[in-house]
């Protein structure tokens, strides 16, 4: 009396499956545009030394407008800044800073947020009360004030940017994870794990977390966009990476007083930030659109 078996589709290797799920993005036009923008910046960051026409830190000829020829040969396509650094090269190298720190900071924030959210949601009771209370306190601070306070206390450096962003973003992530956990923990497979005496860590990491991944991936994509902006803002406020590291936010800050006379100095880094953030947001929209279908 067995039910007839359907022929088993062969399981494909992981990279192929990842490519296939990315290929699903094709069905969403905005998603494709977003993915294109993001991919563009990733390629730029990886091949920066080969693409950049000049050194990002070398002072060549100050205040050259876009498309002016360089003395050493070549063209300053986007002009140079007030101390004579090539803006195109700085924008290209600046993408490296953003594309390293933004994912890293998002990842750290996710680790903390997920662990807190899973425990708060699964355990409930006083632990949930305490963690939710802490999260609410952090969320009630204006984010910018929080960054200024943290960086001013521990100093401006790459690691400290990570710490500050993790501290400020983790509570929001915790709330999402907590909500998902509250839903998933009522499922029968969680009860099945409980009735065979699995440890709490096993239940959290094997039974609950993988099944919450859908909404989390979309959120991570959006949050990556916010973090990119944040890194720009921190750079602009002088709380980011110490100079002379090329940093889009920092570039805007250094040249903002001259923005009316030499607009190219601040416009191009701004365009760079916006296009990457736009790309990430559109990609998140596309992912959400696809995940809602079916």
């Amino acid at each position, binding site marked *: 009396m067995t039910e*007839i078996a359907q022929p088993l589709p062969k399981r494909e290797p992981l990279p192929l499956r990842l490519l296939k799920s990315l290929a699903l993005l094709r069905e969403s036009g905005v998603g494709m545009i977003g993915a294109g923008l993001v991919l563009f910046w990733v390629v730029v960051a990886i091949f920066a030394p080969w693409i950049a026409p000049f050194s990002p830190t070398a002072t060549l000829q100050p205040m050259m407008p876009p498309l002016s020829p360089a003395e050493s040969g070549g063209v300053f396509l986007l002009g140079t800044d007030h101390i004579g650094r090539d803006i195109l090269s700085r924008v290209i190298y600046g993408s490296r800073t953003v594309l390293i720190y933004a994912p890293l900071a998002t990842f750290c924030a996710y680790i903390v947020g997920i662990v807190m959210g899973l425990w708060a949601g699964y355990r409930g009771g006083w632990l949930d009360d305490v963690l939710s209370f802490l999260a609410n306190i952090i969320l009630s601070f204006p984010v910018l004030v929080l960054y200024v306070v943290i960086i001013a206390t521990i100093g401006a450096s790459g690691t400290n940017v990570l710490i500050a962003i993790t501290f400020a973003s983790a509570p929001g992530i915790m709330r999402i994870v907590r909500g998902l956990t509250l839903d998933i923990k009522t499922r029968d497979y969680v009860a*099945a794990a409980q009735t065979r005496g699995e440890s709490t860590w096993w239940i959290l990491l094997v039974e609950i977390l*993988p099944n919450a991944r859908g909404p989390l991936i979309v959120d991570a994509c959006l949050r990556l966009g916010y973090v990119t902006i944040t890194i720009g803002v921190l750079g602009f406020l002088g709380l980011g990476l110490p100079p002379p590291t090329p940093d889009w936010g920092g570039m805007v800050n250094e040249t903002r007083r001259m923005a009316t006379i030499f607009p190219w100095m601040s416009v191009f880094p701004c365009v760079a930030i916006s296009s990457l953030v736009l790309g990430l947001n559109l990609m998140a929209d596309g992912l959400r659109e696809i995940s809602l279908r079916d």
Partner: protein
Amino acid sequence: MSDAASGAATPVLEIDNLHVSYFTRAGEIPAVIDFSLKLEQGEAVGLVGESGCGKSTVAMAIMQYMGANGGVVGGSIKFKGRDLGAMSQEELRRLRGSEIAMIYQEPMAALNPSLTLGRQLMEVPLYHEEVSEAEAYERARQMLSDVRLPDPERVMAAYPHQISGGQQQRVVIAMALLSSPSLLLLDEPTTALDVTVEAGIVKLIAEISKKFGTSMLYISHNLGLILETCDRVCVMYSGEVVEESEVKTVFASPRHPYTHGLFGCIPVPTADKNLRPLVAIPGQLPLPHERPQGCNFGPRCQHFRAGRCDDHDIRMSEITHPSPDHRVRCLRWDELAEDEIATEATEHEPLEPGEPVLVIDEMQKYYPVYDRSIKALLSGQAVRYVKANERLNFDARRGETVAIVGESGCGKSTFAKVLMGLETATEGAITFNGQEISQRPIDSRSAEEIGSLQMVFQNPNDTLNPSLTVGRQIARVIRKFGAESNSETIRARVMELLDLVKLPRDFADRRPRQLSGGQKQRVGIARAFAGNPAMVVADEPVSALDVSVQAAVTDLLMDIQRRYRTTLLFISHDLSVVRYLADRVVVMYLGQIMERGPTAAVFSPPYHPYTEALLSAVPIADTSIEKREIVLEGNLPSVLDPPKGCPFATRCPRKVGTICDEERPPEQQAGPDHMIACHISLAELSLVEPVIQMVKDGEPKPVDPQYG
């Protein structure tokens, strides 16, 4: 409507060769194929079939509401002679809700939570007929008493969440009837309700067409409900109607092998797990885009003839003898004599129960509820208790099936939690395999103890972790209980378990979403049996499955039990299934045991009045059975504030007086191992007529559940 005058000539609904398809990524998927139906004024037609057979799509097509990707690709739907497909959106909107009304499964979803029920009901005549407020109120109130809601004024002033699910469904029905529709579509209107509540709604629905002259299309997967409510029935399979006739004709002499198979899967009172076991239909429903050539039921049919049945699409054939107006979509119906269609069942030796495995002694489980209001603090009632389980006493022996029966809120799930060690008992003892476990939560039990007491869960879509392969999930359990660490041995054991639950071995590498509901439930069973348990708790293991799959899964459980002499604790609300497979039954109501005893004794007089009502509430798909009708009034009392005396006193039709409200009923011994907790004397209870009787030669005769 002007057409209504000539209603005698034109049928209310006429569907002709309807084809409906959905358009998806995978292309066009036909959902309904060649569907024809004629519905006369005041007639009730049942549409019965398993999930995915297209029965709800028919209803959606009638409403002309098929979402973005569905569409009628052929045929016509005429409502009172007018083609619905040719109507404009505006005309359709006027028709929906006034001429054609629909009632869905979830009453809460149909009611607006932020408006009073009265307001929502009054809107119907106000909007469609533009009557005065006062008249609308009067009509709404009258309709509420017509659907037998007690105290209609109070209901009018209430919000949806303030009344129970059964009452909500009555309000939804009242709302549909207020505009006096000519056609009422009911899509599984009682599936979300408890059996005793369902019985009341079913009775109401059966009265509607007589009282209001409304035509009804009743969609359900439950053949018993169709028998109780409808005049005609269409049996659907994989998008097609396979058999259509008067209800009595189809039930008494089904001619399509699928209809026949369905009846073989239903635990009717004459079925018996050892002498007349259920016969499952082999295989499963084909996916809509993988339907076979020719007869859709072909691959599962034992009368299949290659070359004939799979040659071309099969049309409905007319049967005129013995009863006219009977159509069946089968080429071989006239070759298959009736007795030949009947499938052979295999008999089994009954299992002899052994020593007690589980002994429950005066077990209690209370949950404290803290009231932090000042009033509660002052009166000293800051802590109240939900008495989820009150003084439970029963035992289960090796190789035996003990069923716990009761409706939602009766405490059966709490009991399972305490037994499994997810909670600890407030008082009393649970002895399992000679060990006291009531105070030991799961992390203080040894792996062996945990492995010997496992559970099968209710919802097949929820029972497996969607992210892990089937094989890994079973392997985890083996590693956990078997103290086995060699991955080769574990893999071999996983294969053995897949064989045990009759699944192909390559299922080990599949993910749960690639499996059907029945297959997932089989994996759930394999997982429960991985640690060679002495006892398995099955919490409604088949209630979420399709009828034809239910029988197969039930059969499998019985099979494994016979092989390993496992004790089964079967938790269910479905008395037909319980009668079929349990050796002993425990009937619970509001956390207390009302009746306890061997199945045969519980299912025949003397009954506890609650058991009697439960028995009457279960719909039976058998025309040779006559049932006494008992409809319970009122709602389940709150567990926070249960009646002081007998918990059932508030709804009991046989209540004797104030003694029921004030004193706990005595436990009366009605026979060997048979206990009834009631104030009525046994002698009096014994005089009660049996609820279910078999009509044979015009003489009602009680059904003996053991030797039907």
